[in-house]
């Protein structure tokens, strides 16, 4: 039905989707073409698959569940430092894994702050290692992301709705059921699918905090197959398992999204009369403080360690930082070129699993993609010459599902509200984007660009296979420092990485929200 309501060119969107699919399928095909022996899936693999799915379900469920009250509180309150807090919500997610793990351990570890405090109070120590540790870490990484996604959902509710609700004196509970619940039904499934896929491909976090080989994920088995056994057939098989799980979950969940619209408004923000009550205020305050503590204390640990090691950073770290910044900017450009047409295409369709294609890019093991392309490129050219192109493409592909999740809901609203009018006025093609869509989507585009920049900055994914010796990126330089005992200097580099990632995130995000409240 919505298909006819707007003349968004479907061609570019479909081409972008096909390109993403082709990049994955090509890599997979290349790996399979070189496979020789290939052991099937054994009992250990099935155990790994079970563990992977179970922890991903728990992690994504908890992340999104906890994000609901936090996003609600943030949507209803205005306070000093709110903007900074919303920006910092991006931080855990973009930290290199090992840095975030060390930050978490500084708080929850055996000699962390929590256990030190417990010991001082004469209480028994708690251990972070185990299934709960894996989930805790994944919630730390992904709850902020889910919060941001839900917060955008709240901001997309037309303020007139709240005004109307206030006029008929809806209680907060009734308000939740009438206005907020339908919005959540639209936003939660996508957020759930996204976090599920992120947790599905977890490897180092799950292993380290899981406390041993019980916490073996599919990604670890893929790594082992590529690196140690060089069993390409097995690696391809496991990659397919991962793709099927992610794609299946995405299709399943995205089907749940109801085909409704929240209606149009005047694109303005309004005070929330419904949230003025004392109890409401106290609950929101407690929720915000708890969430901020959970997220910020480990970050403080990271910053503290970084400040101590800052002076020991060798000059090469700054050089690497420059390269990382360039890669990040280029990746943003590639991403927007892919994501905007795709989002337009998906938004113009009925609500369904079009977004799943984006998620496939994220669920494909970077090692598989890297190896596959290496097999393709190597016979015809020096892989190093393609290092930058491949890195940019892969970074954009990894960020694509985030960008789609951010862009599709507001795009869908814009299409529904202005589609018929645009068609009537014969606003099409580039003018449609410039006059109608882009101004409505400024904030989400800024957020998506910021997230992509930050993700690219911290990415290590395919670098390992294509790393050009003369163009070392910041995360790789940090890993090298750690590999050479220089943990202090590495902590400094991690802080620089955090600052740059947050910086690029803040600039894009702020740019998108400039002169608009968010």
């Amino acid at each position, binding site marked *: 039905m919505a298909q006819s309501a707007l003349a968004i060119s479907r061609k570019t969107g479909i081409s972008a989707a096909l390109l993403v699919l082709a990049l994955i399928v090509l890599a997979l095909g290349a790996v399979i073409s*070189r496979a020789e022996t290939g052991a099937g899936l054994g009992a*250990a693999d099935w*155990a790994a698959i079970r563990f992977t799915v179970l922890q991903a379900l728990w992690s994504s469920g908890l992340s999104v569940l906890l994000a609901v009250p936090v996003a609600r509180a943030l949507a209803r309150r205005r306070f000093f430092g709110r903007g900074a807090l919303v920006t910092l919500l991006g931080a855990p997610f973009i930290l290199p894994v*090992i840095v975030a*793990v*060390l930050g978490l*351990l*500084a708080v929850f*570890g*055996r*000699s962390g702050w929590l256990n030190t405090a417990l010991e001082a109070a004469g209480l028994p120590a708690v251990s972070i*290692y185990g299934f709960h540790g894996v989930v805790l870490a994944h919630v730390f990484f992904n709850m902020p992301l889910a919060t941001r996604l839900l917060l955008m959902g709240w901001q997309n509710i037309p303020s007139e709705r709240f005004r109307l609700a206030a006029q008929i004196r809806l209680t907060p509970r009734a308000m939740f059921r009438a206005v907020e619940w339908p919005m959540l039904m639209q936003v939660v499934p996508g957020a759930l699918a996204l976090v599920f896929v992120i947790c599905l491909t977890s*490897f*180092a976090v799950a*292993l*380290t*905090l*899981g*406390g*041993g*080989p*019980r916490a073996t994920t599919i990604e*670890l088995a893929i*790594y*082992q197959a*590529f*690196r*140690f056994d*060089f069993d390409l057939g097995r690696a391809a098989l496991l990659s397919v398992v991962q793709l099927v799980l992610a794609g299946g979950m995405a299709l399943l969940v995205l089907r749940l999204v109801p085909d409704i619209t929240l209606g149009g408004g005047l694109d303005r923000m309004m005070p929330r009369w419904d949230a003025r009550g004392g109890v409401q205020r106290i609950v929101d305050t407690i929720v915000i403080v708890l969430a901020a503590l959970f997220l910020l204390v480990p970050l403080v640990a990271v910053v503290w360690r970084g400040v101590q090691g800052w002076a020991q950073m*060798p000059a*090469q770290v700054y050089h690497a930082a420059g390269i990382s910044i360039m890669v990040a900017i280029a990746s943003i450009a590639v991403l927007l070129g892919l994501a905007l047409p795709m989002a337009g295409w998906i938004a113009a369709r009925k609500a369904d699993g079009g977004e799943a294609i984006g998620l496939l890019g994220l669920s494909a093991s970077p090692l598989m993609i890297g*190896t596959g392309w*290496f*097999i393709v490129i*190597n*016979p015809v050219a*020096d892989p190093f010459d393609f290092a930058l192109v491949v890195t940019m493409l892969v970074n954009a592909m990894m960020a694509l599902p985030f960008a789609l999740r951010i862009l599709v809901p507001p795009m869908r609203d814009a299409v529904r509200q202005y589609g018929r009018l645009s068609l009537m006025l014969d606003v099409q093609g580039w003018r449609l984007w410039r006059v109608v869509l882009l101004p409505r989507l400024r904030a989400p585009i800024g957020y998506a660009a910021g997230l992509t920049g930050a993700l690219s900055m911290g990415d290590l994914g395919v670098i*390992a*296979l294509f*790393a050009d*010796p003369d163009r070392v990126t910041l995360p*790789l*330089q940090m*890993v*090298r*420092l*750690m*590999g*050479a*005992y*220089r*943990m202090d200097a*590495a902590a400094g580099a991690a802080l620089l990485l955090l600052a740059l990632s947050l910086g690029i995130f803040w600039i894009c995000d702020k740019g998108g929200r400039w002169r608009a409240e968010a």
Partner: protein
Amino acid sequence: MKYLTFATATLAATTAMAETPELVVYTYDSFVSEWGPGPAIEKAFEEVCACDLRLVGLGDGAALLARLKLEGARSDADVVMGLDTALIAAAQETGLFQETDIVADYALPVEWTDPVFAPYDWGYFAFVHNKDVTPPANFKALGESDLKIVIQDPRSSTPGLGLLMWVKNAYRDEAPAIWEAMADNVVTVTKGWSEAYGLFLEGEADMVLSYTTSPAYHLIAEEDDSKAAAIFDEGHYMQIEVMGRLAGSDQPELAAEFLKFMVSDAAQTILPTTNWMYPAVTPDAGLPKGFETLTVPEKALHVDVQNVPALREEALAEWLKALSQ
């Protein structure tokens, strides 16, 4: 006119570079980093070879071998440096390597006779601890103690694989029982060496699997003498890092020259304080100051490289079973 001069100069430079033979050496990441041996080795070799040495860092030893298998005989590499004893059998199986005629007076605790691969440095695996901790005397004592350790996963890390082979080598059929006893000592298992060592330095564990030479880094580079390596009376498994030249090399003489250079005094004096391992050939001036403080195991354990793959498979299954309960 200016442009023309510039263009001519560029052209001349390119021609000059094309005439200088290039030797491509694949190695692991930490070798080529600015604080690793790479820059000094490159400078020293280029002084004597009239060539351009290109060191290419590719992850760790396992990644190096995987890369080589991917490239096959078409590889640009002339020399591969950074495989270890655990990977030699698999490397030989590729048939990509050519025998070497290197003769050197190796300072290894075992006799080295491999015709293809030549060692350039080595070390003993060991648990590193802070000196205020009383270390156990062997794996059995460790299993009975309350000491917490961090180890690396043998499925993703070479030191992790080293520990697996160490226990298997020392205890053979008893190895599963040793692992079961140690299961409650293992705080966690990490993807690689860096994560484990980082966790140890953060105080997450009393001991970490590393090398007997690790305390040398803290002593020499950080003037910190608080770290020591625990000596186990079963003996210590060794990691011998080796290099080999590829049969498909387009610079066979230069490759041979490089291997010789790596066991010469010039290269061997660089390695101990950049790669933090024992040199394969003791330099004329002896080991650097600080190395004499290191504890030295009384017994070196070594597995014939041909037996590694079979032993590894068995040991890995036992390890998974013992630690998954």
